[in-house]
Structures are given as C-alpha cells and as structure tokens.
C-alpha cells in the first residue's frame, strides 16, 4: 500500500463548485476480477444520482465503497472536498486510519436491500441507537428527533414495535428514518425496493420522493425501478463492466440513449416489466 503513487491527487478539493462526492480514478478488484475500472464520478451537493445497469456491473460496489464497507485498490474518493479513503500526512496522501474513517463516515448514511434493522430493538430504539450511542445526544433529544423522523416516514404509530412485527415496506421506512437520524450529508440507497412485495414498493419510493422534494440531501441510489428513477433523478448513470457506459438526465438517457449497450439494457428491462 505504501508504494501507491498518489502524487496526482490533491490533498483536498477546493474552489467554488466542490462536488459533495467525487470518485477519482477509483478501481476495485477481487483478484483477477475487475469490479470497477478507474471510475470518475462527481455528485454535486443536493444532486440525486441513480445508478442502473446489469448485475455485476459494479453499481452496488460504488455505494459500498462510499460507505467504507469495501476498500478500494486505486484512486481516491473525496466527500465534501476531503479525502475519504485517504488522509493527508506530511503533505501527501496516505491510507486513512480508523479514526479518519470514523470522522468521514459521519457524513454518509445508507439504506440496504434487506433493511438490516436491529431485531432486538423497537423501531424507535433503532432510530435512537446512533444518535445516543455514536453522537452522544441526550436521550430526550434523540427520542424527539427519532419520533419526528418516524412521523415523516409514516411509522409513528408503530414506533414501539420490533422489526419482526413489521412488513418489509414498514421496515425499510424505519431504516430510512434510522439513517436520517444521523443527519448525513449524503444518503445511499442500495436497491431498497428489491426485497419488497410489489404492493408495498410505493410506500418506500414515496418516502424517497418526499426527501428529494423537501430536503437538500445529496443522494446516490441503485435501483431496478426505472420509472421511479426517471421521475426523481437529476442524473442517471448506466454502468457496464465496471465503467460508466453512458450518463445523462433521465430524459436523455431513457428517451434517447446513444450507446448500443444502453439501448439493449433498457429494452431488456422494458420487456421484463
């Protein structure tokens, strides 16, 4: 790791238009398998970017790297101008230590395909856990914040239920509230509707729609719900083979895809729907 040449990467991003998230030549490999190949991707503050693509194209890996659930092999990821995967030391970038990662991670929140609520805590306790035990908030304030968020996702009446008593859609809404309770600058949604029954997908997408409409959160989303992606995204990135094959506004990408692979993928998805 030490012989990594990072001289081409700045210690921090500066200027008037610093993106909230910036991938610079980021690669991820598992042995011979290249999952992401020198990815460059900037996401502006308040922007909603949706990543689509066939399975194995590296789209979930993008989110997992940003949440520091995966390490990266090459390149640097910046969040809010500061390096996430690395830190400045004696005027150059070195791999981030645990402390730096913890500091940077506080900018980011994530929702998972399988919700991953803590089963031994009620909905309210799930939402209070981070604020109380990570941010050190007084319980009373954390409870207020958690109740507000559960109200927002329409789960206030179920706040004392354990996850096992909730439907998938309800669990996912609690999971969104739990992530928001940490006040992240960037929210990541990793296939949050893929494990849901069709009839409850709407209750989760409506919550995300509401977030987009009312809050200036930066969001990255991986989804197979093309109609939903088209409605709410500022930009769509089509991933193929660990690269961004094509990107643009929803109208551009869905209405008039330029690349053959994009066209193939979109027509295959359309047929399946």
């Amino acid at each position: 790791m030490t012989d990594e040449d990072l001289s081409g990467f700045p210690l921090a991003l500066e200027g008037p238009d610093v993106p909230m998230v910036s991938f610079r030549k980021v690669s991820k490999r598992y042995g011979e398998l290249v999952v992401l190949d020198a990815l460059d991707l900037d996401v502006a503050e308040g922007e909603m970017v949706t990543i689509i693509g066939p399975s194995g194209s590296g789209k979930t890996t993008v989110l997992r790297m940003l949440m520091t659930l995966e390490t990266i092999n090459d390149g640097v990821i910046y969040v809010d101008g500061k390096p996430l995967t690395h830190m400045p030391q004696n005027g150059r970038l070195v791999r981030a230590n645990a402390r730096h990662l913890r500091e940077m991670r506080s900018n980011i929140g994530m929702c998972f395909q399988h919700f991953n609520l803590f089963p031994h805590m009620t909905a309210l306790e799930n939402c209070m856990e981070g604020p109380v035990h990570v941010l050190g908030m007084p319980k009373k304030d954390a409870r207020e914040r958690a109740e507000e968020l559960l109200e927002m996702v329409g789960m206030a009446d179920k706040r004392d239920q354990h996850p096992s008593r909730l439907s998938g859609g309800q669990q996912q809404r609690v999971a969104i509230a739990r992530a928001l309770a940490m006040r992240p600058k960037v929210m990541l949604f990793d296939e949050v509707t893929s494990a849901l029954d069709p009839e409850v997908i709407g209750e989760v997408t409506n919550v995300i729609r509401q977030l987009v409409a009312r809050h200036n959160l930066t969001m990255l989303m991986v989804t197979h719900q093309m109609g939903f992606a088209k409605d709410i995204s500022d930009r769509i990135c089509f991933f193929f083979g660990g690269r961004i094959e094509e990107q643009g506004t929803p109208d551009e990408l869905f209405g008039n895809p330029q690349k053959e692979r994009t066209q193939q993928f979109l027509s295959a998805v359309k047929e399946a729907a």
Partner: protein
Amino acid sequence: MSYFEFLGQYGDRILSGTLVTMLLTVLATVLAVAIALAAGLMRMSKNGLVSGTATVYIEIFRGTSLLVQLYWIFFVLPLFGITLEKFTAGFVAVGMNLGAYGAELVRGAILSVPRGQWEAALALNMSPARRMRRVILPQALLIMLPSWGNLLIELLKGTALVALIAVADLMFQVKQINGTTFLSAQTFGTALIIYYVIARFMITPFMRWLERFMQRMVGRA
C-alpha cells in the same frame, strides 16, 4: 433396611452433598460463562497473539481429560506455589473445562449473526466495541442459549468428579455411605435420580425460561 429407613438415616448427608453439588454447579457456570465470553471474543481478534492465546487455551482444555485437569489444579499447581482449597479447585477445574467448550459456542453464535447487522452498525458509525456490545452480542446470545442448556447439563455431571479430590459433594457423600453400608443400589440409585432431577427439572426449565425471557426482550415471542 427399607429404603425409607435408609433415607431417614442418611438423608441429611445426601441433602448436604446435593447442596454442595448445586453450589459447585452455579459457581462453575458463572466461571464458564465468563471464560467462554472472553476466550470466544479473543479467538476472533485480528491480533495473532490474542487469538493464539485463546486457541491454545481451548485446545488444552477441550483436548484433555477433565479429571486430569482437576488433578493438575489440585495436586500440581501447589508445586508452582499456587495452592487452591479443594472446593475452589473443584469448581475452577469444571468451569475452566466447560468454558473452553462454551468459547466455541460464543464464537459460532457471533459468526452466525447476519453480515448485514455488522454493516448496518458500521453505517451508523459505531466503533467496533460498540457494534459487538450493542448489536451483535445480544443477537448472538439468543442464538447460543439452546446449546448452553446442553452444556450446563454436561457441567452438572462433570462436577461429580470433584468427589475424587474429597470435596463433599453428592457423589462423595454416597460413596462414603456405600463404603460403610454396602447398600450400593440405594446409594448410587439415589445419586442417579438426584442428578437427573437437577438436570431435568431445574436446569432445563431454567434455560427454557431464559430463552423465552430473551425472546420477549427482542420482541420475537
């Protein structure tokens, strides 16, 4: 001598032995649980020295006889300047032995908590210690409780060995009674029944209750 006469004459000693056996069981259980947690967590450490220490401990105490361990603790340790009173040596040996088995239960249960739970805890920016304490261990506990029920019955039966270093437990008392009366069927038969009753009507119901209690705590019941 009828069995009732036998009980009338030796009941006090059998009762006192039973109480000693139960006390040994409780103390050895406390020690075994503490050791199991410590050794189980240590085995999962990334530090080779820490996990290696736990592995050596588990290998030695699972791989050799409890009776030999008991003799070591009672007869050999004094040669190195560590002298334990026989009652203490008794429950320490049993606790250390069963703790080694328990360590594997702890490790197995922790590993079987779904990966998504670790990831969600990390996404909330919890420190590794907090992830373990607040998220993983409570769930692991529920997973391993049924196996602990088994282990505690093993532990109870293991305590019978301490009679061999003259701790006045149930086994020791009935052996003494048998030595003077030669009423083998009555003495050992009574011991058999008492061990069974403790296991079947005290340990098992207690563990069932604990399981239900824990399930209620996590909202599953």
